Every structure is written in structure tokens, then in C-alpha cells.
């Protein structure tokens, strides 16, 4: 069954069953990624964005478990596949670029070995073919003297270089979807810019769909067509980038955007979002953002969980300011 979208996630729920209680890291998340589309997944630490990404590839470690939902990739539900089938999808159809390049590579094998291993497994290349392709890939991601670097161990490379290698590995088998989990957070500013430019260029050249996980709206603006905003395991707003950045609807999104220091704001105070991130085991009742929201309506926002509604075409929000729950009555 050919589907319109590359990836469709319905009501994904991933919980962590710890000794202290159940953490609802992803609590009913639904969104789609189309072919050749670039989606940004935004939220603060603990919002569940990374967990969502790893859930797609079913790489959730104990004590976490995906307990509900459907994830359709090219029409097939990934959650119903066997583990063996999943290993064919990981790295080949869907790849993830991890957050920390310093620890992503195995220190006791050369980077060449680590690229070749993927190529041989997924594309069934011969050793020689794999080596040639690996060197090609290293050149593609902008690593100088690729021929010699092939034989080097990861500890010889800088963070930026390692991230390029990781990207090379991720793209080595031509995936249809590339997920980047905060790929530049652990890099210095200059390298950040380089990596982002590289990603943009590769995107253009190869044309795969991308899912960018970040808390940085600058990256979103540069690289994403669609943005999904998450808070405490739920999606609170989703729209195309331009609309979201120019007319954010959800109070959380607005607050996030206000946090960003702008050129005009020199001399003014920074505006952090007041309050504390929600307790993952006992989140606030009703709308999880209500304790920190300056627009919160008593008796409504703290009691009733808002549903996602399409307020303007293509722009979805979960907030009582935009639905018709006023005066305690739900009017659809």
C-alpha cells in the first residue's frame, strides 16, 4: 500500500517504568513526515523528543517500553515488525545521528571499519567496494585526506570530524529518513555552523526526509519546513516553520521564542520561562504547562487536558485559548 507520507506516527506512548514511578516520556504523540519533507521537533530537555525518535526505531532500553501507538513507515507498522526486520530498517531506511559525537564511535575500531561494516551488512558490498564507497562518503561529508583517515581510530579526530563520520555512516546506505538528534549541541559554535551547512547541502543533494530534533529555533528556521513543538511528552503545537515563527499560538511556543536574545534586546533582561520543568512522574493535571503559563485560565487549564485542534489550515494547537471551552462547557 503506497502511502502519501513516508512516516506516520499515531498516538505513540513510550513509558519508563522506574523504581520511583512511571515516567510518561511520550504520552500520545501523533504526527507525519512526508516524502522529502524536513520536520523539526522542538522542546526543552525532558520533553520527550529524543525518546520519540528512538521509539521510531524501537531502540528503547529497559526500563522503558513502547506501550501503545502505531508507526507507519512506507505503509507498514514498525511496531509489528520482528527485531530482525528492524535491524534491516535501522541504518538502511531510517538513520539516526546521535547527539554526542565524542562517544558515538567505538574506540577500538578504525572509522573505516565502522563505515564498511554498515555497507557490507545492508548493501552486501564486497570489502573492496565497501572501502571505496566509504572513502567516497568521507569526502562527501567534507573530511580532508579521506584515504588516510579511513585507517584512523576515532580518538584522533576532533568532535566536528567525528560528527561528520557519524553523518557519513548514517547516510551510507541512502536512507529515506534521516533523524538528527541535536547533532550540534555538543559542538562549538563554529563547528555547529559547519555541520549545519553540511546537513543542508546533503539534504539538497540526496533529498531524503529529515527529522531535526533540537531546542534551537535558529536551526529550525534554517533547515525545517514543518515544526512540531513538544512539552512534557505531548505535542502542543505544529505548523509550517514560517507560520510558527511569525505567529506562534501556544503560550509555550511564544515563551520559547521570547527567550531568544535578539539584537534589539541588548541591554534588556533575558526572559526565561518561569517555573520548573514538570515532574515526569507526577505531571500537573489538565494542561501540563498551566503552572508556568501566563494565560492560564483557572478551573479550565488546570482541570481539563486540551486536545489538538486545527486553528488555521495546517496549524495545530493544543490549548484552551483556541478551543471553545469557556465557562466550563465544551462547545465543539
Amino acid at each position, binding site marked *: 500500500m503506497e502511502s502519501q507520507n513516508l512516516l506516520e506516527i499515531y498516538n505513540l506512548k513510550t513509558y519508563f517504568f522506574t523504581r520511583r514511578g512511571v515516567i510518561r516520556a511520550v504520552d500520545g504523540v501523533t504526527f507525519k513526515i512526508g516524502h522529502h519533507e524536513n520536520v523539526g521537533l522542538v522542546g526543552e530537555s525532558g520533553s520527550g523528543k529524543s525518546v520519540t525518535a528512538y521509539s521510531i526505531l524501537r531502540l528503547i532500553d529497559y526500563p522503558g517500553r513502547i506501550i501503545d501507538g502505531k508507526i507507519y513507515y512506507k505503509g507498514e507498522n514498525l511496531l509489528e515488525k520482528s527485531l530482525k526486520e528492524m535491524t*534491516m530498517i535501522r541504518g538502511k531506511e531510517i538513520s539516526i545521528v546521535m547527539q554526542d559525537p565524542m562517544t558515538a564511535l*567505538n574506540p577500538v575500531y578504525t572509522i573505516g571499519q565502522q563505515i564498511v*561494516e554498515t555497507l557490507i551488512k545492508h548493501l552486501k558490498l564486497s570489502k573492496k567496494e565497501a572501502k571505496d564507497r566509504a572513502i567516497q562518503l568521507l569526502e562527501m561529508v567534507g573530511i580532508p585526506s579521506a584515504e588516510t583517515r579511513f585507517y584512523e581510530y576515532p580518538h584522533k579526530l576532533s568532535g566536528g570530524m567525528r560528527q561528520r563520520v557519524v553523518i557519513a555512516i548514517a547516510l551510507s546506505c541512502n536512507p529515506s529518513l534521516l533523524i538528527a538528534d541535536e547533532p550540534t549541541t555538543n559542538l562549538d559554535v563554529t563547528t555547529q555552523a559547519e555541520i549545519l551547512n553540511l546537513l543542508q547541502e546533503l539534504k539538497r543533494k540526496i533529498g531524503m526526509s529529515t527529522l531535526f530534533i533540537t531546542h534551537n529555533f535558529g536551526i529550525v528556521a534554517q533547515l525545517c519546513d514543518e515544526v512540531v513543538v513538544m512539552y512534557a511528552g505531548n505535542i502542543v503545537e505544529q505548523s509550517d516553520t514560517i507560520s510558527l515563527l511569525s505567529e506562534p499560538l501556544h503560550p509555550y511556543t511564544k515563551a520559547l521564542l521570547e527567550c531568544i536574545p535578539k539584537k534589539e534586546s541588548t541591554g534588556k533582561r533575558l526572559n526565561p520561562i518561569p517555573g520548573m520543568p514538570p515532574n515526569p512522574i507526577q505531571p500537573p493535571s489538565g494542561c501540563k504547562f498551566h503552572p508556568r503559563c501566563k494565560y492560564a485560565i483557572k478551573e479550565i487549564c488546570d482541570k481539563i487536558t486540551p486536545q489538538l485542534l486545527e486553528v488555521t489550515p495546517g496549524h495545530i494547537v493544543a490549548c484552551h485559548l483556541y478551543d471553545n471551552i469557556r465557562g466550563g462547557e465544551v462547545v465543539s
Partner: protein
Amino acid sequence: MLRHIISTLISGCINLFFITLIVFSILHLLPGDPIVIMFGMWEQNPQQIEFLRHKYGFDQPIYIQYLNWLTQILSGNFGESIRYKEPVLKLILERLPATLWLILGSMMISLLISIPVGIMSASKPHSKRDYLGMLFALFGISTPAFWLGIMLILVFSLYLRILPAYGFVNPLESPIEGLKTLTLPSITLGVVLAGTVTRTVRSNMIEVLYSDYIKFARLKGMSERTVLYKHALKNALIPIITIVGIQTGILLGGAVVIEQIFGWPGIGRLILQAVYTRDYFLVQGTILIYAILFFLVNLTMDIIYAFIDPRIRYE
């Protein structure tokens, strides 16, 4: 890497030098007159004592004594045992094989137990099997080795009569008999040692299994088997080399008591006899040899480590 090895060697030699100082000063830290302490049991005649004092150079200034002693050591002369009337070095070399076999046997049993149990525990932390593994480790650490030895002798030698409780037969000369004598002592030390080592293996494995690069290997779509045996194992094995070094130290200490229980003619027992009979030349010699042995084992481990870990090898 060469630089690393050389610096380890130099550092080790300096330590060894200080150890000789310490060992030498044992004799001179004794309260009272060393000569009287050593020979007082056989000689009461003051003239004889003076003669002995001169013979062994105790009437010379301390630093001269030390230099003499050091030069003697370096030329292989570790002095002569007062009680056995034989060169210390000869006595030690005669007994070295027994202790080496004991250490080998114990280490093998320890690794045979602790590596599987440690891996089993690490594969699912905080699960039932993990608690079982850790309970075993706890018991191992808390058990007095010599008591375990005695209990094993009670059951297997005295009641069941299937294994000998006493003596050593070199497995190279007579394999079956040798292994029989080696069994109980090795199990005794091995099981107790396994307690400590299991915990180390477990924590090393956990660190590896939950590392980012293992996650990345899975992300790439590698099969679980490849992930475990190719990616995880090599990383986890490297620290195990250091474990062998640590084990040796513990075993060398434990051997002293265990050799006593099993009538094992090794260096440990020799040291004890020396201490009991106040045979201080023997005490000096044996402790020095022990320290050198330990030093050599650690040095070898360091060098092997430098070879295996690419981060050091390609420095």
C-alpha cells in the same frame, strides 16, 4: 606507546628501589639488637655474638650495610637462611613453582566463574539474575578463604575422601595427581576471589553495554550478536587485563594462609616459617621476591594493555 612503556618501567624501577629500602630496614626496625634477635636462640656467648655481628657486617654504618646488601641482591645473593642454612634464593626458587601453580589455578577458576556471572548480571541490571549474581559476589567477598579451605577439606578429603588435603604434585610431572592436589586450594582461593572480580566484570560490562557507541551500533542496524561479540566484548575485555594484575596481588597475599592450610610447599608457606622462626634474612629475601613478582606481573599487564587499547597504542 613506547614512551608510555618506558615511563612505566622507570616509574616501576624507582618504586622497586624504595621497596628494597623498606625491606632492608625491616631488620633494623626491630626493637633490640638484631643479632641477638636472630641468633639469640642458639648463641648466648657474647664473644660469639660479636663474631657474628662482624661476620654479617652489622658493625658497619647503616648506609654501607645497605649498599653491600643491595649489591649482593643485584648479583643474585639474597643471603642465607639462618635456619635452613641454605641460600635464600635457592629456597625461594625451589618453592616458586608450587605458588605459581596455585596462582594460575586460582586465577583460572576465578575468571571461569566471574566472567560469565558478571556478563549475566550486566545484561539485565536490577533483574533477578543480577541480584543472584551480586549475592554470590557478596558471599564470596565475605567468606574467609581459610575457613572455606577447611570446610572443603572436611567434606572432600575427610568425609568423601576423593581429593587430597595435603601436599603438592607438579602437574607437569604427573598431570592427574597434580591436578588433584591443585583442585581444593585453587577452588578455595578462586571462589573467594571471584566475589571481587565478578563485581568488576559486571560494572565494566554495564559501562560498555550502555555506552553510546553500542547504541550507535544498534542504530546502524547491526544484529545483537554483532553488537555483543564484536563491539561490546573487545571493549569489555581490555579492563579485564588489569583485573588479572589486581588478582595477582590478592592471590599472593591469600596464598600465604592457604598454603599453610593445605601444606602447600610454596613461597607463602616459606615466608610464614621465616616469620615464625625469626629467620630475618629469609624474611627479607622472600618479601623482596614477592614484591618483584608482583611488580613484574603488573608491568606485563601494563604493556599488554598498551598494545591492546588503540588509544594508547597509537599515541
